[in-house]
C-alpha cells in the first residue's frame, strides 16, 4: 500500500476538530463548541439524576445497567475538556510532526522502515471511526425499531427512549417524545464524536513519535568509524524527539487518567450485568464490554510502543561499530546509552504508567471488584435484608 501523506492521516481528525468547534488553525473557541458541549452535559446531568432517583439497595442490577452509559458520557466530556485546554500544544505538536514526516517521505530508506506503521495508523483511523459510527447509529435508531416492533406485536405504542433520563415532563405522546428523542440521538452522536476523535488523535500522534524514535535507532546503528561526526546529529535529533514526546505526555496525561479510572468502573459494571442480568441484555453488554476493553487495550499498546521504541535507542547505540571509533565518540555513545536506559513513558497524571503491565492491572482490579460485587449481591425478594 502507498505511504499516506501527513494530511491524509490527519484529515478526518482535523475535520472532526472543526466540527467540534476547536479548529486547528484558530485558537479561539467557536460557538459550535458550546452548542455541542452544553446539551451533552445537560443530558449527562439528567442521566445522573435518573440514576440518583433509582438508587437503593434493591435496584442494584438496574443501576449497573445505567452506569456504562453515564460513564461513557462523562468520559467523553472530560476528555474533550482536557484536550481543549491543551489545544495550542496539540497544534504545535502536529506542525512539528508534519515537518519531520516530510523529511521521512523524502528519503526512501526511511520510508521503508516506517511503511508498515503508517499503513497501520491509516487503517486504525479509518476503521475506528467507521466502527464507532456504525455502533452509535445502530444504538440510536434501535428505539424507533423497538417501538415499531412492539406496535406490530401488541398493537400499542410504547414510547421508548434510547437513554434513561429524568425529565420534568412525561414523554407519553408523540411531540414530547420526538423532541427528547432527537435531543438524545444528537447527544449520542456528539459523545461518540468526542471520544473517538481523542482516541484516534492519541494513536496517530504516539505512532508518529514512535516512528521518529525508530528512525533515530536506525541511524545510530549505521554509524561507524568514518561517520562518527553524525553522532552529534543523532543526539540533537534524539533531544528533539524526546521534547516532542514530553509534549505528547503533557497533552494526554489527563485524558489517560480519566480513561483508566472510568474504564475500570465500566468494566466492573458491565461484567456484573453480563453475569447476573437477563438474557436480552447479553448481546448489548458483550458489545459494550468489548468496545471498552478494546479502547483500553489500544491505549496500552501505543503506550508500550513508545516505551520500547525509546529504550531501543540504547540497544542501537551498542549495535553500532563503537569499538572502532575514537575515545570521544565512545564517550558520546556511553552518554546516549545512559540516557536511553530511562525510557519515555506516557502516564495517567503520574499515578500509573500506560503499558501492558497497567492494562493487566486494570483488568485484574476490575475483576476483583466484580467478584466482590457478585458475592455481595443478593437478588431482591430472595433474602430478607436487615435494616441497618
Amino acid at each position, binding site marked *: 500500500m502507498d505511504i499516506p501523506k501527513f494530511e491524509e492521516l490527519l484529515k478526518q481528525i482535523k475535520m472532526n476538530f472543526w466540527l467540534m468547534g476547536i479548529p486547528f488553525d484558530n485558537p479561539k473557541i467557536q460557538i459550535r463548541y458550546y452548542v455541542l458541549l452544553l446539551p451533552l452535559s445537560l443530558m449527562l446531568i439528567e442521566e445522573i439524576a435518573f440514576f440518583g432517583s433509582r438508587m437503593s439497595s434493591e435496584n442494584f442490577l438496574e443501576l449497573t445497567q445505567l452506569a456504562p452509559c453515564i460513564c461513557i458520557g462523562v468520559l467523553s466530556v472530560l476528555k474533550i475538556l482536557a484536550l481543549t485546554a491543551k489545544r495550542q500544544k496539540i497544534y504545535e505538536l502536529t506542525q512539528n510532526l508534519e515537518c519531520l514526516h516530510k523529511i521521512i517521505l523524502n528519503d526512501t530508506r526511511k520510508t521503508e522502515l516506517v511503511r508498515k506503521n503508517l499503513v497501520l495508523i491509516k487503517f486504525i483511523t479509518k476503521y475506528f471511526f467507521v466502527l464507532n459510527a456504525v455502533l452509535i447509529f445502530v444504538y440510536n435508531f434501535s428505539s424507533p425499531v423497538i417501538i415499531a416492533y412492539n406496535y406490530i406485536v401488541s398493537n400499542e405504542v410504547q414510547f421508548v427512549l434510547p437513554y434513561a433520563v429524568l425529565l420534568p415532563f412525561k414523554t407519553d405522546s408523540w411531540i414530547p417524545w420526538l423532541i427528547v428523542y432527537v435531543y438524545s440521538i444528537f447527544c449520542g452522536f456528539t459523545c461518540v464524536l468526542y471520544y473517538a476523535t481523542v482516541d484516534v488523535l492519541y494513536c496517530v500522534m504516539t505512532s508518529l513519535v514512535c516512528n521518529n524514535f525508530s528512525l533515530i535507532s536506525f541511524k545510530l546503528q549505521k554509524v561507524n568509524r568514518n561517520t562518527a561526526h553524525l*553522532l552529534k546529529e543523532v543526539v540533537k535529533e534524539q*533531544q528533539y524527539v524526546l521534547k516532542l514526546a514530553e509534549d505528547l505526555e503533557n497533552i494526554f496525561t489527563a485524558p489517560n487518567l480519566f480513561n483508566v479510572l472510568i474504564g475500570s468502573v465500566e468494566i466492573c459494571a458491565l461484567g456484573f450485568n453480563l453475569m447476573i442480568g437477563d438474557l436480552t441484555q447479553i448481546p448489548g453488554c458483550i458489545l459494550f464490554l468489548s468496545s471498552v476493553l478494546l479502547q483500553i487495550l489500544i491505549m496500552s499498546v501505543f503506550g508500550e510502543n513508545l516505551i520500547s521504541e525509546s529504550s531501543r535507542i540504547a540497544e542501537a547505540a551498542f549495535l553500532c561499530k563503537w569499538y572502532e571509533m575514537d575515545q570521544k565518540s565512545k564517550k*558520546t555513545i556511553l*552518554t546516549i546509552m*545512559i540516557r536511553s536506559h*530511562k525510557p519515555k513513558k506516557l502516564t495517567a497524571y503520574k499515578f500509573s504508567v500506560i503499558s501492558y503491565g497497567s492494562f493487566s492491572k486494570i483488568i485484574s482490579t476490575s475483576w476483583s471488584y466484580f467478584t466482590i460485587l457478585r458475592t*455481595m449481591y443478593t437478588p431482591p425478594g430472595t433474602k430478607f435484608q436487615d435494616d*441497618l
Partner: protein
Amino acid sequence: MMTKVKTQGLVTDLMPCIRLLQAAGHFLFNYHADTSGMNMLLRKIYSSAHAVLIVVHYICMGINMAQYKDEVNELTANTITVLFFAHSIIKLAFFAFNSKSFYRTLAVWNQSNSHPLFTESDARYHQISLSKMRRLLYFICGMTVFSVISWVTLTFFGESVRMIASKETNETLTEPAPRLPLKAWYPFKTMSGGGYVFAFIYQIYFLLFSMALANLLDVIFCSWLIFACEQLQHLKAIMKPLMELSAALDTYRPNTAELFRVSSTDKTEKVPDAVDMDIRGIYSTQQDFGMTLRGAGGKLQNFNAENNPNGLTAKQEMLARSAIKYWVERHKHVVRLVASIGDTYGTALLFHMLVSTITLTLLAYQATKINGINVYAFSTIGYLVYTLGQVFHFCIFGNRLIEESSSVMEAAYSCQWYDGSEEAKTFVQIVCQQCQKAMTISGAKFFNVSLDLFASVLGAVVTYFMVLIQLK
C-alpha cells in the same frame, strides 16, 4: 519585646512556622534572641503546661472509651477519635525526644557555596521556594481552623445521644449525652451549667491545639521538601549556561575543526569582570579553594598562549572548572539535606502511617453504616477526608522530590553537551549515571513516600469497605 534573633539558612525561611510551633506548645526552645534563664524557664513551663493539658484530655477520652467498651458502635467511634488525636500526642513526644535532629536538619543549609555566575539563579529559586512555603503554611493553617470550626458547628446538629444496646430487649436505646464536640469523661457534671461551659471551652482548646501540633510539624517537613525541590530546579536551570561555559574549555586539541565552536569563545569573553577579580573572590570559603591554588587533587594544565586552543587564560579556565565544582558541591549539599530530612522525620512518618491505616480501616467499617444524609454521614466523611488529606499532604511533596531528582538526568542530557569539552562530557556522564536513582524519603525504610503510597492506601480503604459491607 524580643530583639531580633540572628538566623541563617533554613531557619530564616521557616521562621513563621517555627514561631507557630513554639506557640502551639512544641518543645522547641532554640532560635530565641533572649536566652536568659528566666525566659527559658517560662518557655519550658509554657510548653509543659500545654503538653499536660492535652495529655490529660486525651486520657479523659481514653477513660470514656474504656467505660463504653461493651457497645460496639460506641467503641468504634471512640477508637477512631482516640486514634485521630494519637497523631498529636505522638508528634509532640517525637519532637520532644528528637529535637536535636530537627535542629541539625534546620542547620544543614547554614553554609552554602556560591558562584558569581549563578547567584542570580540561586536567589530566584530561593525566592520561589520561600513563597511556596508561605503559601503552604497559610493553607494548612486555614484548613486547621476550618476543620475546628466545622467540627464545633456540627456538634450543634443532630441528637446528642449515645447508642446503648439494652441487654434484655436487644434493641438500641438512646442515652442522653452532653452536647460537646468530643465524648470524654470528666470528674464533674457536664450536662449543663458551669461544668458544660468549661468542658466546651476546654474541648475547643484541645481541638485547635492538637490539630495544630500535628499539622504544623507536617508543614515543616513539607517545607523542607519544597526547599530541596527548588534547589534541584536551580541546578537544572544552570546546567545549560554551565555547558556553554564549558564548551569553551577544551583542554585537548580537537580532532576535527568542526568541533571547534567559535561562538562559544565569544560567550566566554562576555563573562563579567570575574576573570579580573582575585581568584579568591570566587569562593566563599577557603576550603572550597583547596584544589586549584595548592594544586592538590586537580590537574590544572598550564597553558602557554600558543598551546591553549581557545586562547583562554588560566583564570578563565579555572572559572569554567569552578562552575562545574559549584554544581557538584551544591548537588551533594542537596543530597545531604534530603538524607537529614529522612533521618529526622522518617520514624514520625512510619507512626503516622501505622495509626492512619488502623483509623482508615475502622472508618471504612463506619462508612458501611451510613444510611442517609445526616450528622453521622458528615462526621464519618469528614474524618475520612481529613485523614486521607493528611496522608496526601506529605505524599505529594515526597513524590515531587522523586520527580525532580530523577529529572536532573534528563536536564543534563538535554543541554548541548556534545559541543562541550571532554571534561564537560565526563561531567554529564557522571551526573546522568548518579541521577538515575531518585532521591526518596522513606518511612524508616519500610516504605517510600510517594503518590504510589497514597494510591495503595486509598485502594486498601476501598477494598476494606467492600469486604466489610459484604460481611454486614
